[in-house]
C-alpha cells in the first residue's frame, strides 16, 4: 500500500465540464497541482487546453464542476487567489506604446510589490534583459517580449503560475534560456506551475508531470518518461501525434510491456 500524498494542493479541478453549444470542450476534467510541481497540459489544437486554462483563470465559467486554489473556491475568492498567482501567455501582450519599465511598474503597483523599482531591476537582470528597460514594449522582438512578459509574471513572487505556451515563436536559443529561467525560479521559490506548450522539448525539460487532453478528456497522465514508457512510441512527440490523431489508441498498452 502506497503512502498517502501529503503534498500541499495548490490548484484542484474536480469533474470540470465546459460545453459550447452542446459540444464538450472539457469533459469531467479533474487534476491536482501541488506546491513546487510543474504540470504540463498537452493536447492538439482544440483538445481543451485553452478552455481549461481559461476556466482556471476565471475568464470562462465552467458548465459544471468545482475549482479550488489554495483550498478556496475560485469564483468566490477570485481576487485573493489572483493576488497569489500570475499568468503569462504568448497570446497576450503588455501595452506596446509604453516603455518596458513603465509597464512593469504599473503591474508592480497593481500587485502591491514592495520596493517595485528594485524588484523590476532584479527580474530584468535575472532574465538577462536589463538593457530593455527603456525600450518601447511594442518594438521588442518575440523573444524579448516573452522575457518581459515573464518579468511581469514573476513580479509578485507568485505561488501559482500559469504559463500558456511561453516559448511559442522563440528561436531554440531563447527558448532554452526561458526554460532554464522558469525552472530555476520555480525550484528556488517552490512555485506550482501549470504549463501548456506544443514544444515537447519544453515539456520534457520543465514538467514534472504531464496531462494529455483529447476532446476535452484526460487520456494520459504521468511523468513524461512514464508516458513514453507506457506507450508504443519512442518519444513524447510521437505520443503527442498519436493522441492528436486518435486519442484512444494510447489506451492500449505498449506491445513490449503487454507480453
Amino acid at each position: 500500500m502506497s503512502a498517502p500524498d501529503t503534498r500541499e494542493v495548490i490548484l484542484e479541478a474536480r469533474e470540470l465540464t465546459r460545453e459550447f453549444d452542446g459540444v464538450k470542450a472539457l469533459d469531467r476534467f479533474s487534476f491536482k497541482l501541488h506546491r513546487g510541481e510543474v504540470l504540463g497540459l498537452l493536447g492538439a489544437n482544440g483538445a481543451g487546453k485553452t478552455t481549461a486554462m481559461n476556466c482556471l483563470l476565471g475568464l470562462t465559467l465552467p458548465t459544471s464542476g468545482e475549482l479550488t486554489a489554495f483550498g478556496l473556491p475560485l469564483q468566490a475568492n477570485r481576487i485573493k487567489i489572483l493576488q497569489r498567482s500570475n499568468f503569462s501567455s504568448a497570446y497576450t501582450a503588455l501595452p506596446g506604446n509604453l516603455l518596458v519599465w513603465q509597464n512593469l511598474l504599473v503591474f508592480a503597483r497593481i500587485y502591491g510589490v514592495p520596493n517595485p523599482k528594485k524588484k523590476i531591476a532584479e527580474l530584468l537582470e535575472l532574465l538577462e534583459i536589463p538593457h530593455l528597460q527603456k525600450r518601447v514594449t511594442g518594438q521588442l522582438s518575440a523573444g524579448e517580449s516573452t522575457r518581459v512578459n515573464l518579468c511581469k509574471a514573476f513580479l509578485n513572487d507568485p505561488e501559482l503560475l500559469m504559463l500558456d505556451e511561453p516559448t511559442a515563436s522563440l528561436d531554440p536559443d531563447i527558448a532554452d534560456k526561458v526554460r532554464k529561467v522558469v525552472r530555476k525560479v520555480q525550484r528556488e521559490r517552490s512555485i506550482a506551475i501549470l504549463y501548456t506548450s506544443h514544444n515537447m522539448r519544453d515539456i520534457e525539460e520543465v514538467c514534472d508531470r504531464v496531462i494529455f487532453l483529447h476532446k476535452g478528456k484526460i487520456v494520459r497522465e504521468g511523468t513524461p518518461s512514464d508516458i513514453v514508457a507506457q506507450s508504443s512510441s519512442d518519444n513524447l512527440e510521437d505520443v503527442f501525434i498519436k493522441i492528436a490523431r486518435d486519442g484512444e489508441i494510447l489506451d492500449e498498452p505498449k506491445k513490449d510491456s503487454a507480453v
Partner: protein
Amino acid sequence: MNFRIISALVMRHLFLYSRTPMRMVELVFWPLVDLVVWGNVTVFIQKNSDAKFGGFILFFLGAMILWDILFRAQQGVAISFLEDVWTRNLLNIFVAPVRTAEYLSSTFVVGFLRILITCVVMSLVSWIGYSFNIFQLQWWLVPFFLNLMVFGWALGMISTALILRWGQAAESLAWAVPFFIQPVVCVFYRVEDMPAWSQPIAWLFPATPIFEGMREVMKTGSMSWNHLWLAAGLNVIYLSLAGWLFVWVLNLTRKRGLLTKFATQ
C-alpha cells in the same frame, strides 16, 4: 476598493499620454474645431440680428463646453477600455487582482482628467478669441458640471458593455452613443422648442435638466434647484443601471467563454 490599484491603472494612462503627444492633440483638436466654428457662427448671428440675440454667445459656447464635458467623461470610460483591447492587455488586467469597481473607477478618473484638460484649453481659447469668460456662468454651474460628468460615466459604462457584448465590430459605439441622445437632451435649445410628443422623452435623461438648469442659471444668475435634484436623481438611477449592465455583460461573456476571444482577437 483598493486605491493603490486604481492609481496604478490611472498611472498607465498618464504614461500613455505623456509618451504620445498625439493623444493630447486628440483631446484638444476636435473641441477647438467645434469652438471656432460655433464661435464664429454665433458672432455672425449676433452682428446680423437684433438685441434679443445678444446672449447667443453665452448660450451656445456655454452649451458646447458643457456638452464636451459629457462627451469627454463618456470617452474616458469607453476609450480607456478600448485601449486595453487594442493593446491586447485586457487579459493581463482580468487575471490580475483588479475588481470590476476598481477598473471602472480608474476609467472615471481618466475621464475626469480628460475633461480638465479639454475645459482649460477651451476656456482659454473662448476667452481670448470671443471674450467669453466661462466663470461668468456662475459657481452655481459647478453642481451641473459634476452631474454631467456622472452621466458621461454612465454612458461610458453602457458603451463599454455593448462593445464587450458585441465585440470589436461595435467599437464605433464608443464615439456614437452620446450622439444618439444629443437630439433629445436639449443641448442647444429648450425643451419647449421641441415637438410636444418628444418632450416627455427628453425628461428621461439627466442631461436635459442639466442643460435646462444651466440656461436658467445663465439667465437669472440664481440656482435652479428643481433641475439639479431631478438631474441628480436620474443620475443615481442611470449610474446604478449602467454599472449593473456592465457587470451583467461581463458575467455573460465569462459564461459564454467570449471574454478571452474578445481580448485576444
